[in-house]
């Protein structure tokens, strides 16, 4: 039962002044939610590259493209038809001699506009609808939910066709179809989150302090739903872009002479045999958009997902 002790310097056995508060000090700068999320997002190379690509696509479509090119997407020059990519026509020309470069970017502008529209609808209609429904609960919730169920029951294709009966097919009809159905998923998600957060202790604490409904929603519930909202947006956008492209592809969307990535792909598909570049080029830009939005969405989900923290 003997324990052997080493000889040590006696001064080591003096009392160490332990400041307990030292231990309670938190090292490093305060890390907020968004900053932390950004740090995590940066580690995901796919997402970061996608973000960079998307930013360049946006810039090219809206700013750079029109600046560089002096052509118009509509000018026909039958003498120059079916030219492959040349130094004058970077993307070549189509069957009417129109410059493909400008047409493709015009089509991209349409797609991005649709994506933006979908995002705005999601935010201003979907989130509000879902928040009101989830927060108020009870009868209001029941009624609002039945509303969504009805809207969901009708496929957006049908609505687009109906809209076209009344108006001319084009960007307006697509906008209407999207406005009626595109935001319902977001509303459901936000409602679910509201229901979850309503009963969390920090919400109860606020209520017991005397917070009114507005304060609860604006300061507590929405901020804790932003992660979810952003992630959902990142997936709504490509879904909307795809929906428009599909409608245009089957001829129900953008009509000639306007260009949309979908209609360009459709036209290109007809010419695949002899002039494949007419298909590959718009298809490439379209795929790039879809992939990047999806990768970014995945990256954001990983970065923002509360379960993966700590």
């Amino acid at each position, binding site marked *: 039962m003997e324990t052997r002790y080493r000889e*040590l310097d006696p001064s080591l*056995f003096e009392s160490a002044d332990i400041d307990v508060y030292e231990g309670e000090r938190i090292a490093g700068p305060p890390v907020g939610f968004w900053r932390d999320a950004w740090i995590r997002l940066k580690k995901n190379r796919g997402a970061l590259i996608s973000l960079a690509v998307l930013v360049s696509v946006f810039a090219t479509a809206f700013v750079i493209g029109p600046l560089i090119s002096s052509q118009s997407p509509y000018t026909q020059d039958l003498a120059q038809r079916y030219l492959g990519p040349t130094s004058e026509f970077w993307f070549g020309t189509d069957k009417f001699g129109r410059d493909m470069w400008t047409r493709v970017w015009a089509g991209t502008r349409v797609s991005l506009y649709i994506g933006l529209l979908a995002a705005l609808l999601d935010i201003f209609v979907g989130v509000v609808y879902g928040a009101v429904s989830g927060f108020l609960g009870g009868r209001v919730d029941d009624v609002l939910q039945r509303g969504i169920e009805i809207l969901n029951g009708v496929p957006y294709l049908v609505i687009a066709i109906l809209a076209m009966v009344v108006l001319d097919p084009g960007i307006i009809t697509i906008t209407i179809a999207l406005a009626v159905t595109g935001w319902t998923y977001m509303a459901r998600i936000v409602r679910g989150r509201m229901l979850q957060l309503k009963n969390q202790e920090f919400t109860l604490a606020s209520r017991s302090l005397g917070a009114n409904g507005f304060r609860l929603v604006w300061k507590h519930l929405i901020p804790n739903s932003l992660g979810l909202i952003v992630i959902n947006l990142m997936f709504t956008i490509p879904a909307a872009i795809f929906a428009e492209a599909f409608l245009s592809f089957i001829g129900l969307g953008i009509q000639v002479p306007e260009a949309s990535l979908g209609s360009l792909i459709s036209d290109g598909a007809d010419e695949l045999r002899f002039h494949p570049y007419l298909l590959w080029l718009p298809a490439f830009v379209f795929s790039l958009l879809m992939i990047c939005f999806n990768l970014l969405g995945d990256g954001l989900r990983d970065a923002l997902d509360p379960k993966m923290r700590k």
Partner: protein
Amino acid sequence: MEMNGDNILEVRDLQISFSTYAGEVQAVRGVSFDLRRGETLAIVGESGSGKSVTAKSIMRLNPTANTIVRGGEILFGQEDLLKLGEKQMQNIRGPKIAMVFQDPMTSLDPTMKVGRQIIESLKKHLGMSGREASKRAEELLTLVGIPNAEERVKHYPHQFSGGMRQRVVIAIALACEPQILIADEPTTALDVTIQAQILDLLRELQEKIGTSVILITHDLGVVASVADRIAVMYAGKIVETGTVRETFYDPQMPYTWGLLASIPLPNADRSRDLIPIPGSPPDMSDPPKGCPFTARCPYAMRVCSTEFPEYTTFSAEHKAACWLHHPMAPNVEPPVRIGDAR
């Protein structure tokens, strides 16, 4: 690789870390202890102490993706459990070493009838036929105190209350009469009156079957009630170990003193404040040098943050690691002794 004849399990210098997105977290930093045949050993500690990780390591149930075994051995029979392959471990989990977890809600498969969950184990490990296994399953449910066993065997987990579910979990664990039962906070999620039932049951079954039990808990009352020996863990290390009487009545390490002093006893003097341990447990992704308790220890000396002290032996079973036992350290008295309050 020789084990002392009395011991059924020997853990030597176990070191386990996890790789997380925040870096490497050293959960267990050199833990050694023995489990004797037929005894109940309690491993006590708070969050971050590493007690659960130690228990899971014996069963090799830590997530393979990010668990790093940095060293040590776990000797059971002739084998070092850390070196066995997954197939061999499967032959040990269940028939030789069984585990009971904290949450009875998630320990049982909600889509499988309770009887079947027991029968599975019996058929696989003991090679029983369907009929034999069924009968044995009913016997086991009765053994753990579930009335109407023939009917209950066909029920699903959600048809049982929390306490009953825990009994079922115990029945599954003991189905093959394992040599060791590891119970990780088995009663923490249960009400006090149900806890008393389950602890009684464990005691009874241990006597009947002769299983050795490792009980992981943070509740010193439970320890005093059912354990023979205790190992106190802090920040990945064992800081004191001994028989329950020795450790409760003659604790030798400031953390143990702190734990005992901060619990209000039934006859505590209400006019006096409790004596808490200030501060919080350390961050295991960056464990402190030396004795991990230094930052919160009212008796800390400069040597404490330089290296972890040697264990001082006080009796056959009682050991503690603290620089205060070095002959050059000043004499100190623990703040409170349990025996005094009685």
